């Protein structure tokens, strides 16, 4: 028994398996989901296939698909959390306590925020970048394919940990940014905050590595003739985003590291006592946190820029303005972090500075909207599903931007800070800007990756339900903010008269639920009807950029011959016979071989996280040793690439063309 105790430490306990029936639902869903995947793979004998074709693949497109799949799974879980919150707040007025106690409700909203930002939005973003960035740049792969795989598995390790908290233990009950001193050991002694810490710590390191990878890809891997100012705006948006990521995520890593030292080693960076100062953490975390929201939205701006130009069948208006606006937003996003805590009492000068910096961001953002509108002007607009998402975006995001500018005025912020007005505002920008953007992007590039389009009318129906549900869910939340309702309340006094508005919001959430269901049906139906929806041309939307010049689905090597471009919208001009982008001889090239290195590092990272959460120090050492061993072994390995000869390339190209 003593031996067992020294192995398992003093933190683990059987009590963490059982919390009550509501939590049991989460446990059952997580375990059931995992078992269903394992059983399905075993029954259909797909383990070998999934290992060879997906898990060990270094093909950026496949890694992108895996990111997207994980993000969609997390979207469903995060949405489930949202439904629980809406139900609880709808029910818990006066004597009715709803079905969640305070502690559990707080875990639910902490998980909702953490999951939606770190595992849905970031996952969809890295997914889309992997899917299309190399294709757009006329490159065969990203700069560092193995690093790309490692980044994905660090993200996956975070995903495993965040879901493991449902099964064994608990999650933080402290809000998605876990302000100390509440998140310190004194007030949150359980493993919940540690699950939060280590799941995003590990995923966040993956994000930093990805940023390095994509910056180098953009700077070094562009095809011949593609100067920076000939890059598609999506590539520019990723460039801006990845610079932000590279500069911001280390701050997250640092603040989380210090908080974990406080919690594990009894240090006092952010405690109230012994010289610790929580305000340091709040400053640091938002110095990451504000760039983070632009990290999420800039790629979406890039997607809209591609979608609008393609479907208006017109050059993107004001390309240079767009690039400058992106870079201006990226720069200013570093100068605004204190607007998240005007109410800390920083005084007029500090508050005014950060308030004005914040509203300045509205200028380049406004310019982008006008440029999109004038891309539509005198175009020939085709209303396919991606355009519906764009219209949904402009109609929602404008309001989110306007409420954001109001929040940026410190004297107004004092009245709406931490209220449901704020909650409505950031959902307005993140759903309207980010989520709709990524849906547009997924719909737009789906045929390039899978070789068939998503069903059009179901997509339009989903977009309609999303936008209707969005307004029905969040306009009442805005009003509740005006009525003085703060965020994160698991119950409220019936005399406030808030309940009808919470009910209205819950109905809106149900409509969003219908929208999500429609999207799942759309996916299933499209797979079923993939023959009819097949994209034979490789260019289903009459596109403008290089990814549409290769067959669909894009081959593993992307381009049999690397393209040479002479202008922006190179493929558009090539189609009009103004230039030839594929000329010259076929050449030899190398492709990275599959490797299990990423998988092994992901497993080690998961073990490390689990060990750190439960204070199993010996296991931490084992995990770190494992990472080092895997990396050293990989470095010893000289045989990491396959050669494709020029002759083979020519043959592959001919076969693809014959098939099309």
């Amino acid at each position, binding site marked *: 028994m003593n031996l067992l105790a020294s192995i398992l430490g003093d933190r683990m306990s059987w009590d963490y398996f059982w919390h009550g029936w509501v939590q049991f639902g989460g446990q059952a869903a997580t375990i059931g989901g995992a078992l269903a995947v394992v059983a399905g793979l075993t029954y259909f004998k797909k383990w070998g296939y999934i290992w060879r074709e997906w898990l060990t693949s270094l093909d950026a497109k496949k890694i992108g698909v895996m990111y997207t799949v994980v993000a969609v799974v997390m979207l469903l879980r995060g949405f489930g959390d949202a439904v629980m919150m809406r139900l609880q707040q709808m029910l818990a007025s006066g004597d009715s306590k709803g079905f969640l106690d305070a502690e559990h409700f707080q875990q639910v909203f902490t998980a909702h925020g953490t999951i939606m930002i770190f595992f849905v939005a970031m996952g969809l973003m890295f997914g889309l970048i992997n899917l299309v960035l190399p294709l757009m740049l006329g490159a065969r792969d990203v700069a560092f394919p193995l690093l790309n795989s490692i980044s994905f598995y660090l993200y996956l390790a975070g995903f495993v940990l965040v879901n493991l908290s449902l099964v064994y233990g608990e999650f933080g009950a402290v809000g998605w940014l876990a302000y100390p001193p509440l998140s310190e050991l004194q007030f949150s002694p359980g493993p919940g905050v540690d699950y939060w810490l280590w799941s995003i710590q590990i995923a966040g390191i993956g994000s930093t590595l990805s940023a390095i990878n994509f910056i180098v890809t953009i700077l070094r891997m562009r095809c011949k003739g593609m100067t920076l100012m000939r890059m598609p705006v999506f590539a520019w948006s990723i460039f801006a985003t990845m610079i932000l990521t590279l500069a911001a995520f280390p701050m997250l890593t640092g603040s989380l590291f210090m908080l974990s030292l406080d919690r594990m080693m009894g240090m006092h960076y952010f405690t109230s006592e012994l010289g610790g100062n929580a305000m*340091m953490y709040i400053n640091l975390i938002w110095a990451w946190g504000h760039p983070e929201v632009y990290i999420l939205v800039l790629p979406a701006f890039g997607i809209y820029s591609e979608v609008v130009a393609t479907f208006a069948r017109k050059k993107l208006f004001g390309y240079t303005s767009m690039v400058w606006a992106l870079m201006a937003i990226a720069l200013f996003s570093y100068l605004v972090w204190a607007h998240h805590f005007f109410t800390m009492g920083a005084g007029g000068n500090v508050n*005014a500075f950060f308030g004005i910096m914040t509203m300045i961001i509205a200028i380049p953002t406004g310019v982008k909207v006008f440029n999109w509108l004038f891309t539509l002007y005198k175009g020939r607009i085709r209303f396919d599903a991606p355009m519906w998402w764009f219209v949904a975006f402009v109609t929602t995001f404008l309001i989110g931007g306007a409420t954001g500018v109001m929040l940026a*005025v410190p004297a107004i912020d004092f009245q709406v800070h931490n209220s449901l007005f704020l909650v409505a505002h950031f959902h307005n920008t993140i759903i309207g800007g980010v989520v709709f953007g990524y849906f547009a992007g997924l719909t737009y590039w789906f045929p390039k990756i899978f070789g068939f389009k998503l069903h059009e009318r179901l997509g339009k129906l989903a977009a309609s339900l999303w936008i209707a549900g969005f307004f029905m869910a969040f306009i009442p939340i805005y009003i509740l903010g005006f009525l003085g309702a703060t965020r994160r309340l698991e119950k409220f006094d019936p005399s406030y008269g808030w309940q009808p508005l919470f009910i209205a919001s819950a109905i809106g959430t149900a409509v969003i639920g219908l929208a999500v269901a429609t999207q799942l049906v759309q996916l299933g139906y499209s797979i079923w009807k993939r023959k009819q929806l097949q994209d034979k041309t490789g260019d289903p939307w009459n596109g403008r950029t290089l990814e549409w010049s290769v067959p669909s689905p894009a081959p593993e090597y992307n381009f049999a011959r690397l393209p040479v471009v002479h202008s922006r919208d190179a493929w558009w001009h090539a189609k009009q016979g103004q230039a030839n982008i594929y000329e010259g001889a076929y050449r030899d090239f190398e492709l990275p071989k599959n490797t299990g290195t990423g998988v092994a590092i992901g497993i080690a990272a998961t073990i490390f996280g689990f060990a750190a959460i439960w204070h199993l120090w010996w296991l931490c050492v084992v995990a770190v040793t494992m990472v080092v061993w895997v990396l050293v072994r990989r470095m010893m390995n000289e045989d990491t690439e396959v050669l494709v000869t020029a002759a083979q390339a020519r043959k592959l190209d001919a076969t693809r063309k014959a098939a099309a």
Partner: protein
Amino acid sequence: MVKRAARLRLPPLPRWAVVCIWVAVTAIFAAILYRLTKGMNHGILNPKGEIAERQRNLLAFAAALSLLVIVPVYAMLFAFVWRYREGHKRSYKPNWDTHKVYETIWWGIPIIIIGILAAVTWVTSHSLDPYKPLASSKSPVQIQAVAMNWKWLFIYPEQNIASVNEVVIPTNTPVEFTITSDGPMNSFWIPQLAGQIYAMSGMSTKLHINAYDVGSYKGLSSNISGTGFSDMKFAVRAMHQTDYEQWISTAYASHDALNETVYSQLRKPSINNPVALYRVISSDLYDTIIARYMHPDSSQVKTTEENQPSQTKLPTSQDTDHPMHDMGGM
């Protein structure tokens, strides 16, 4: 590209029908919201005090300014997507991608609007700074507010009384709240009287209010502070000067003393505390609460003195420093 067979077998809706459906849904939704919110008068849009009223007016101004952008952009969006949809007979300029004058206009208009708002922001950030005393012929009432797990303690240092979860103030008199926390961070907020300010342990923040009307207003914490967070609410009762003085004297005459034992009892986490009144014996109760989070022995004071000079200074209730200025690392 999409074959007939791949479509759901529903007749396609004509464009005008789609528009009608959207207009109808929006109208019904707006009507329902109007009905639901009718008669609600307790939020930040119905201020009952000087600061809240000026903040509401500022909100209205900012909203009006943003409508200057929203309305034209909506109009342009719907006009463009309607007029330039596929099949139109209007001009099509696929290569028209830049226009110096137009682009100057839409860099210019936002710059002007934001410029106006920035000027207003600069002025109001100072004029509505919660630390700024309010102009009045009367001297402000001093109240010290302490966020605890999970209740609010209000100390009246001049009247030597204290109350839990209820604060009584005179109308048309400035009140100066000095705020701290004996536990996690909270945010002190009375929506109808003034915007909020954080309550943080070991530090003091300030908030000035001036209530116009007699009445009971809700006060709450807007920053999550643990299990009992939803019960971090208090009543603010604003009454005429005479009633207020009456309340003070009854409070002083008839209730228990808030000594160390009672305070340590109060300090234990509890939810939904009933309103309670105390006489206060020690005149430096508030300072003691703050000092609890200062360095316990002199050696530590010494080591941090160089990097965090103001942290070692014991803030008093008269301390007007903004806490962020105290941060050694900033």
